[in-house]
């Protein structure tokens, strides 16, 4: 075992120092943090674009930008948020920080590959930024790159899709790494039913990353090939079928939404028992439902295409299967709620964010049922109803999951605690702002406000105004939260090994953890949610 007096901050494990020690590190914790910083920066950029969208939409007609700019802004907003922020967020950042320690391992199975993934991620991100300033201008296709428009437009789509390809590759390698780690590097005694649920969720996520992402890879490569060679695979004038593109795109991108949500569900499954001080309700059901979501989630892609002109038979099948995926999510929600029953609950910030997750995700998920039902989807497809649905599940779900994870785990890695009171205040502002921002969008969506509209009919203005005001409140909440975390991690009170009194292995190591994670052989045979005899040690 390694020298236990130095944390991974001080001990880089190599002779290099300073920034070079970070850029060449193979330590999963450092890599996790490097992911986090870039994700955070891009998240803020994406949020600002969101803010700009809202500002433009506060009134019909031109407010702050012209139509072409608007189109590139929502495209960037979508591409950044989906491919650069949310897909890597919890797995690559928090997953890297937490997963190996939860398993009692020193690192992931392929540490160098892990660093390589990070470089791919950075390369993809940079290339995406390059696409903004070169060629025919920033892409204006929406994050879905639908053909034939994406083949005709003269903006810089080619570079953007290559960026997406590289980001996808990075995601694949991370998933591959985690699956192998979970199979091979569990500490002695860590049987499959003792793996913490966060890691379980990353396991399911890993499989989606490995099996679905390549399809995205080939899809974007085909766009590139079409733009360069003009083969015409999707061009009806040359015999191609544009709807096939949509199939390929969604074969990846529907499972991708579960890449986004599963890890957040894992976070919540790990947090709730800690603050209720009792075992999670239905461990096996939650673990198994993750796998179910991963598998069944691969079978529903065409629910994004109910109005695309595909056959009615396909609508029937895919609508039915979509409802099947809702079941494992429902099981999880019920189990989380049941975990609180007869607990001894203390509402600390991580729990608060986790509960916020449950509510917002439920709203998003339940409106997903409207979308999954064929007749109703025809009406609300490509309207603000969908926009609201996915912000509730992605931002309300994954976003709040990420915030919960940050409040839960980061003190461990920075060794310092944030101000809990401010964290709670930030939560309430966020929560109010969030609903004010997105709830009105459901209503104007139902009234028929199409998405990706630069300008709109006057009857929708009221909803847009409320929503824009909501975005400002939300912005205040985010700023307070981020500043509080940042202040906490630089100047906050020092914390001990186990500030929350949690039972998984990452809390059994020194704070911050040493380079190879453990100063003594961890006892991995203990159940992950058995809190008897564990007390918080702040």
């Amino acid at each position, binding site marked *: 075992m390694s020298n236990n007096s130095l944390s991974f901050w001080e001990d880089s494990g190599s002779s290099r120092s300073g920034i070079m020690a970070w850029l060449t590190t193979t330590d999963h914790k450092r890599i996790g943090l490097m992911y986090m910083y870039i994700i955070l920066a891009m998240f803020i950029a994406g949020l600002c674009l969101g803010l700009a969208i809202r500002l433009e939409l506060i009134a019909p007609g031109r407010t702050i930008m012209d139509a*072409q700019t608007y*189109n590139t802004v929502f495209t960037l907003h979508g591409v950044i948020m989906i491919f650069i922020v949310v897909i890597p967020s919890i797995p690559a950042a928090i997953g890297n920080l937490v997963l190996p320690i939860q398993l009692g391992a020193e690192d992931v199975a392929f540490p160098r590959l892990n660093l390589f993934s990070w470089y791919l991620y950075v390369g993809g991100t940079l290339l995406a930024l390059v696409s903004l300033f070169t060629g*025919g201008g920033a892409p*204006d296709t929406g994050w879905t790159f*639908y053909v*034939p*428009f994406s083949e*005709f*437009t*003269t903006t810089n789509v080619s570079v953007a899709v290559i960026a997406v390809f590289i980001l996808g590759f990075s995601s694949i390698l991370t998933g591959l790494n985690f699956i192998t780690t979970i199979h091979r590097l569990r500490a002695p005694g860590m049987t499959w039913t003792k793996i913490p649920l966060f890691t379980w969720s990353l396991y399911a996520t890993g499989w989606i990353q490995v099996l679905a992402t390549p399809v995205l890879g080939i899809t974007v490569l085909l766009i590139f090939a079409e733009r360069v060679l003009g083969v015409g695979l999707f061009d*009806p*004038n040359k015999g191609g*079928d*544009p709807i096939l593109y949509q199939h390929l795109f969604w074969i990846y991108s529907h499972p991708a939404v579960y890449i986004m949500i599963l890890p957040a569900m894992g976070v919540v499954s790990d947090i709730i028992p800690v603050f*209720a*001080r*009792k*075992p999670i*309700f239905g461990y096996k*059901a939650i673990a198994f439902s993750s796998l179910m979501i991963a598998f069944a989630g691969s079978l529903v892609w065409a629910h994004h295409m109910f*109005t*695309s*002109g595909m056959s*009615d038979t396909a*609508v029937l099948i895919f*609508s*039915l299967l979509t*409802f099947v995926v*809702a*079941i494992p999510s429902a099981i999880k929600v*019920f189990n989380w*709620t049941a975990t*609180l*029953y007869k*607990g*001894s*609950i*203390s*509402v600390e910030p991580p729990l608060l964010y986790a*509960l916020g997750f*449950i*509510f917002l995700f*439920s709203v998003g998920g*339940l409106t997903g*049922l*409207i979308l*999954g*039902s*064929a*007749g*109703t989807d*025809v*009406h609300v497809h*490509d*309207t603000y109803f969908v926009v609201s649905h996915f912000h509730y599940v992605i931002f309300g779900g994954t976003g709040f999951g990420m915030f919960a994870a940050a409040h839960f785990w980061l003190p461990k890695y920075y060794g310092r605690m944030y101000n809990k009171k401010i964290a709670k205040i930030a939560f309430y502002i966020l929560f109010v702002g969030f609903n004010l921002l997105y709830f009105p969008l459901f209503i104007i969506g139902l009234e028929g406000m*199409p998405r*990706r*509209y630069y*300008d709109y009919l006057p009857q929708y203005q009221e909803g847009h105004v409320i929503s824009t005001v909501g975005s400002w409140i939300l912005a205040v909440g985010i700023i307070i939260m981020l500043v509080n975390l940042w202040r906490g991690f630089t100047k906050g009170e020092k914390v001990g090994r186990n500030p929350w009194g949690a039972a998984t292995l990452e809390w059994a190591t020194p704070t911050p953890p040493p380079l190879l994670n453990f100063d003594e052989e961890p006892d991995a045979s203990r159940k992950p949610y058995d*809190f008897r005899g564990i007390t918080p040690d702040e």
Partner: protein
Amino acid sequence: MDTTLIDAVSKVDTAFKFIFGISFIILFLITAVTLYFLYRYSRKRNPEPSQIEGNLVAELIWTIVPCIIVGAMFWYGWVGYKALREAPADSYEVKCTARMWSWKFEYPNGKTSDKLYVPADTPIKVDLTSVDVIHSFYVAAFRVKMDTVPGMHTYVWFNSGEPAEYEIQCAEYCGVRHSYMLSKVVVVPKEEFDKWLNASSSATEAPNEGEEVMKKHGCFDCHTTDGTELVGPSFKDIYGRDTVVMENGKEKTVKADDAYIEKSILEPGADIVKGYEDMMPPTEVSKEELAKMLEYFKGGGKPAVRAGAKGAEVAEREGCTGCHSVDGSEMVGPSFKGLMDRKTTVLKDGKKMEVTANVEYIISSIKHPSEYVVDGFEPSMPEYESLSDDDMKALIEYISTLK
């Protein structure tokens, strides 16, 4: 109204209500239970947690019950969907072609328009296709939406119901003017629809605006346009004629010019046409409305044929105005205003050159836009090779009026 026809909308709405209803109940229960637990089992009230790891019965219940619930949701949704797809066999069929960024509707007799005119109380089936990228035909009021896919034909159907107007919006992102790709479904009474459909002159294609205004104010309750007499004199050929009126009981002949007509509308009691009673109510009309009416009268009950009016229509119908403004502002392409005979810098095969936009140039720009691409614009204009000579002439005439 035939009740089977409103079915699709109501079936879809039933699905909405069912899913929203259940979702609301579930959300409410989960939230309430969570809040109760937070209160009841807070550390203060319940310092000792119970070690419950699970409960098979409970878990089975909340697996099976949701299965049943979502099964029902699926069913309602599917029933709604089926209703949206099964167009009655006797539907009135209109063809719709979408293109950047306008809609073109073609009726069985070959007539085309840029708004969708349909007879009231009829099932309408719209056959959809696109010539460039994917658009989506969306009429919220009828709960219908369907992508228009190039190279493919899709359809929607709806029951037109009572005379009214509904918004058509393009619901699939299609480029810079996506949000302006709007039109209307105009439901008109059956007879009126037939009349409109069979009117040969394309100049009356859209019911003209003056007529529209007068309809609104109910003028036609008392006046006709075909020379027959109702309560008031007919509007036929009214403009410019000599009219005998009674002013304070004295006969007087006046010329029916703008001032006269205006006065007749605003102060009907001032001079009464001989042989009629002082029955006409004063009407509140705006300046614009007045202007429209005057134009209507000038046309002898038909709108005046302005120079280029036909071209304007063609431009509208062919979607030119989706990309070109007529007021000098720059949209996707250069404005038509002042286009004729201006000097333009264009790119031909990548080389810059100066050209004068004479008639030949404009024709070539319309038929083969990619040959000369105006500097500073994308070569995104579609080719209009199949434009008829008539339409082309009209367009040129129209463009040359826009000084």
